[in-house]
């Protein structure tokens, strides 16, 4: 008898396991059919997620973005919070690893039930979390300039799209008579797409592209690439490298005898923080394209720079992505207050026309594209490591992520 019972047990156990598993399966299925997690805003506080790489190759840049989001949150809390609720930030480390970003986004939305998430830097990490936010109908505020050609209904883009950064950068080069360019970038989504746009612009404007080189993300050996750039005798270099690679690239560039006077480099990923870690001796006089510099004049910027330095140290510079991240929290607050609630649909519906007197100047949310109107600024790196503006677009540029307003860009999207 005992023997038989044992045998029965043996047969029953797997059966029970299968039943339990299928029960779990149907449970997650139910969740999905409901349409994602709903933010928990029942208490005195409202939780928001901070999703940045605090380790790995991107940490150099992303830690500063996290810091400025925290600054905005503290300022808002000090002045009474959002709709009477204090903001409770929950920080997660994306570790410069795209699947980790998706995993942590899921955790913030489903377990912590945050009202919105602020963060991501590389386009690869944004592409990785995009389906997570869309499935769960949750909000992401993305604070970094990017390659455009995207418009997720659940992402607000507070950094520049291409027509607010890359196109003005090219227009500036053209106006300076630099008509032959060499393209150097890291090998991932942003540089590849950006270079596609650059090539279309260059072709339509009687300029030439003399070469196009990609280095793997994190690559630090630029001897050959710089040799090729030098041999091409281009009049300027358009640089879309990201992270550590910039350090190696500019060290090599200088020791090969290339200077800002002989062959200027326009960079779209080097802001004040990166200048500091690359070394001003290697960057003196080189150009950058952004929407904000620490030196941008205005009372709003004076207040932002002062508050940031008071909190994180006098030697810490402020930069464009940091400013865009700081602005994103205030824009979210304004949208929520206009909507009168934290529900994602209401916030989205209320977004159009929301303005904020940002450190970079007045910004306005464009509800149709969920991007913002920004002023384009070209800057020059000075010997003190700060970037000073040499040109600006005069007024905020309407965001055009698919470049529909530019005939030469037809066929890109």
């Amino acid at each position, binding site marked *: 008898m005992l023997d038989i019972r044992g045998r029965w047990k043996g047969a029953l156990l797997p059966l029970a396991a299968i039943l339990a598993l299928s029960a779990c399966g149907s449970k997650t299925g139910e969740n999905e059919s409901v349409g994602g997690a709903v933010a928990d805003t029942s208490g005195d506080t409202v939780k928001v997620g901070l999703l940045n790489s605090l380790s*790995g190759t991107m940490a150099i840049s992303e830690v*500063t973005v996290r810091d400025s989001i925290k600054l905005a949150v503290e300022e808002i809390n000090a002045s009474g919070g959002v709709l009477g609720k204090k903001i409770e930030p929950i920080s997660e480390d994306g570790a410069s690893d795209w699947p980790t970003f998706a995993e942590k986004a899921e955790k913030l939305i489903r377990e912590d039930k945050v009202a919105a998430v602020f963060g991501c830097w590389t386009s690869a990490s944004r592409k990785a979390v995009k389906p997570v936010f869309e499935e769960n109908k949750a909000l992401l505020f993305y604070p970094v300039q990017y390659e455009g050609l995207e418009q997720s209904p659940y992402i607000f883009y507070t950094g520049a799209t291409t027509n607010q950064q890359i196109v003005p950068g090219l227009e500036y080069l053209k106006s300076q008579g630099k008509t032959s360019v060499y393209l150097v970038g890291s*090998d991932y989504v942003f540089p590849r797409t950006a270079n596609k746009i650059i090539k279309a612009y260059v072709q339509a404007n009687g300029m030439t592209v003399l070469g196009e080189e990609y*280095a793997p993300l994190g690559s630090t*050996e630029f001897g050959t690439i710089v*040799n090729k750039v030098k041999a091409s005798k281009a009049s300027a270099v358009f640089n879309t490298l990201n992270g550590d690679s910039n350090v190696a690239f500019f060290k090599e560039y200088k020791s090969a*005898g290339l200077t800002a006077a002989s062959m200027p480099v326009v960079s779209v990923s080097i802001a004040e923080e990166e200048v500091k870690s690359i070394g001003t001796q290697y960057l003196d006089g080189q150009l950058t394209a952004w929407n904000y510099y620490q030196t941008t004049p205005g009372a709003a910027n004076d207040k932002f720079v002062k508050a940031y330095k008071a909190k994180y140290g006098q030697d810490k510079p402020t930069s464009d992505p940091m400013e865009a991240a700081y602005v994103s929290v205030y824009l979210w607050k304004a949208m929520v207050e206009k909507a009168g609630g934290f529900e994602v649909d209401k916030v989205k519906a209320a977004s159009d026309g929301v303005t904020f007197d940002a450190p970079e100047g007045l910004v306005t949310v464009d509800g149709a594209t969920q991007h913002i109107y920004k002023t384009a600024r070209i800057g020059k790196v000075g010997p003190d490591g700060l970037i000073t503006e040499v040109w600006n677009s005069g007024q905020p540029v309407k965001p055009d992520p698919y470049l529909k307003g530019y005939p030469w860009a037809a066929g890109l999207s």
Partner: protein
Amino acid sequence: MTVIVSQLFTGVSIGAVLLLIALGLSLTFGQMGVINMAHGEFIMAGAYTVYVLQKVITDAGWSLFVALPLAFAVAGLMGVLLEVLLIRRLYARPLDTLLVTWGVSLILQQLARDIFGAPNVQTRAPDFLTGNIKITDDLVLSNNRLFILTLALAAVVALTVALRYTSLGRRIRAVVQNRDLAAVSGIATGRVDRLTFFIGSGLAGVAGVALTLLGPIGPTMGTNVIVDAFLVVVAGGIGHLKGSVIVAFALGTLQSLVEYSTTVSVAKVLVFVAIVAFLQWRPQGLFTLRTRSLA
């Protein structure tokens, strides 16, 4: 022609960097058989030594030359500490050594992050190293690359002399060739191990100083180079300095010549394929060490 010469120079200088980062490893891994995954972090320690030193000695030129012996000592002592505390207990268990030293490498990276911050730091290069020597308008040899090449060759010469002509070198070679016989002959093998580890790790520190002239200085800089270092030592043949030297320059030149006509990624792939093919043909590496040990 100019292109080929300038690419050859780039290749040789890539080789010099490979050689510098692999030289210490060819001692600890090559001679002692210890798979030390924390070797990259000793390189990082050498680079941070320059950073800290420049806070005291503000002249970039002097600080670089003081940093060379200082980084050797700092990284060397870290190596000895690691040997005494952990590796010594694991000599018979190579796989455990691999895991333990990998853990140590993660701890050291986090330590650097906590002390110096997650962002990269910058050091100033002396003016005489940021310039270049112009041979023709298109052919320039950058001073920092020439400096690294000289440094790598000097390190090889110094190490060869030390191994071949000093009593310490004789003892190291004796222990490598037959540990038991060396011990029976009155050599304190434990002390020799510690000294070997000191020199090997110290060389990593020197490599770290050189890398500050070329690339980023941050907590992950060691992990960026450690794979290349192991490749050089394995392909060169374990226990042979000569092999590491030849392989380092061969790989550097191959990388730069292929990269010029293709792209970085293609060149990397081809280099890896070449190494795999080479190891199929000679699994022991370029040179093999005949030892008298029974194992």
